[in-house]
């Protein structure tokens, strides 16, 4: 296992060639034609779908207008209480209202997304395919507060049965990850990172097993974080997910369970975790291009109740 994760930065094809003959004798699976694995930073994708729905509080209204095939403008209004980050256990909220203007340019080769808020925050995302296998992804968050802006650029290289990524960010952040398909269902990966500003470095290992009925993933990092997740597809439109997270440094353990129902006119996601937090998100399609969203989150431990509703027009 360790041989697969040790060269996260090496993007050459020498690694799969060297590792494959070792396993080829055991089974009749064609180990030279393994499927390309999922990117390393997305290995929990299915579990996140039902366990981390985009819950919000207050009102939100999103409007997207496509000007032509590739270019679209978006407007959104957000109103509701915002939590102030504080050290004390009780939450402090104050009412806020924001308008957000955005522009999207979507092309098969180039994707540009920009968002600007009335409080001066700017988000930008770029995805550009430099060649067939190499692509560049960059995200930037700029604020008018000092030391809160950050920029991260990712170079992704997609091989035949492996993917590797090199990450560069401000604050001297360097990261690299590599994931390799070992069998048609199992893939193993690893990552290293170094944050120069905070003088922190770490190494992590990940494994993912998926077939058409279930997905199981595990991730261990030297920061003390252990994440295990399991997603079972009960039906083609129903999936159940569970996740176990353990942080060795802060010694906290969280287990959560969620469901994801895709019905004909709506999508419903719900989750409950061991911290006494319950959440649900309902996206109801009222008409073509008109969605109604209801969000609910109850934190029994903190006695924090968040409810929100919204409309999405366009898309």
């Amino acid at each position, binding site marked *: 296992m360790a041989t697969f994760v040790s060269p996260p930065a090496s993007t050459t094809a020498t690694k799969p060639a060297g590792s494959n003959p070792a396993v080829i004798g055991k089974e009749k699976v064609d180990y030279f034609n393994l499927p390309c694995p999922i990117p390393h930073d997305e290995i929990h994708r299915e579990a996140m779908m039902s366990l981390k729905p985009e819950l919000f509080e207050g009102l939100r209204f999103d409007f997207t207008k496509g000007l032509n095939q590739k270019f679209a403008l978006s407007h959104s209004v957000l109103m509701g209480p915002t939590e102030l980050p504080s050290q004390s256990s009780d939450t402090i909220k104050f009412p806020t209202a924001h308008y957000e203007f955005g522009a999207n340019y979507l092309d098969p080769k180039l994707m540009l997304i920009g968002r600007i808020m009335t409080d001066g925050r700017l988000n930008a995302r770029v995805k550009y395919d430099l060649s067939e296998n190499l692509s560049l992804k960059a995200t930037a968050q700029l604020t008018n507060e000092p030391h809160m802006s950050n920029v991260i650029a990712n170079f992704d290289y997609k091989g035949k049965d492996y993917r590797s990524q090199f990450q560069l960010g401000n604050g001297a952040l360097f990261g690299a990850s590599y994931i390799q398909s070992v069998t048609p269902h199992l893939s193993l990966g690893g990552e290293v990172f170094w944050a120069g500003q905070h003088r922190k470095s770490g190494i992590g290992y990940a494994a993912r097993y998926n077939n058409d009925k279930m997905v199981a993933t595990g991730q261990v990092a030297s920061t003390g974080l252990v994440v295990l997740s399991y997603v079972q597809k009960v039906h083609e439109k129903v999936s159940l997910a569970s996740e176990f997270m353990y942080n060795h440094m802060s010694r906290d353990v969280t287990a959560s369970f969620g469901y994801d*129902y895709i019905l004909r006119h709506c999508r419903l996601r719900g989750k409950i975790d061991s911290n006494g937090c319950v959440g649900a998100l309902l996206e109801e399609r009222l008409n073509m291009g008109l969605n109604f969203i209801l969000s609910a989150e*109850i934190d029994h431990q903190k006695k924090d109740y968040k409810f929100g509703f919204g409309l999405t027009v366009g898309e």
Partner: protein
Amino acid sequence: MSSSRIAGGVSLPDRGASSSSSKSGARGGVLSRVTSSISQSPVVYQGKRVACDAAFVAKKLLKSTGKAAWIAGTTFLVLVVPLIIEMDRDAQFTELELQQASLLGTPPSASSGQ
């Protein structure tokens, strides 16, 4: 006699003082002794304590049960009630589609496109 009885009725120490001398006072002394011996008996004392404890525990139990019921109820309201409503709606749509298909003979793809 009557005056002493009244006096005995009014103030306890007077009755206690007269109980040693007068007949009616002696009868009252027996009664009070019996009641006091009953009220000070370990059985009654224990009973009282048990009743007190039981009431306390019952109150705590009722409170925690209520809290648990509240948490369970609100969780149910958030997680399960929307699911039931939406699944019911979906089932209704499917039924309606089937009915339309059987009545009009239209292909189900036409009705689902609405």
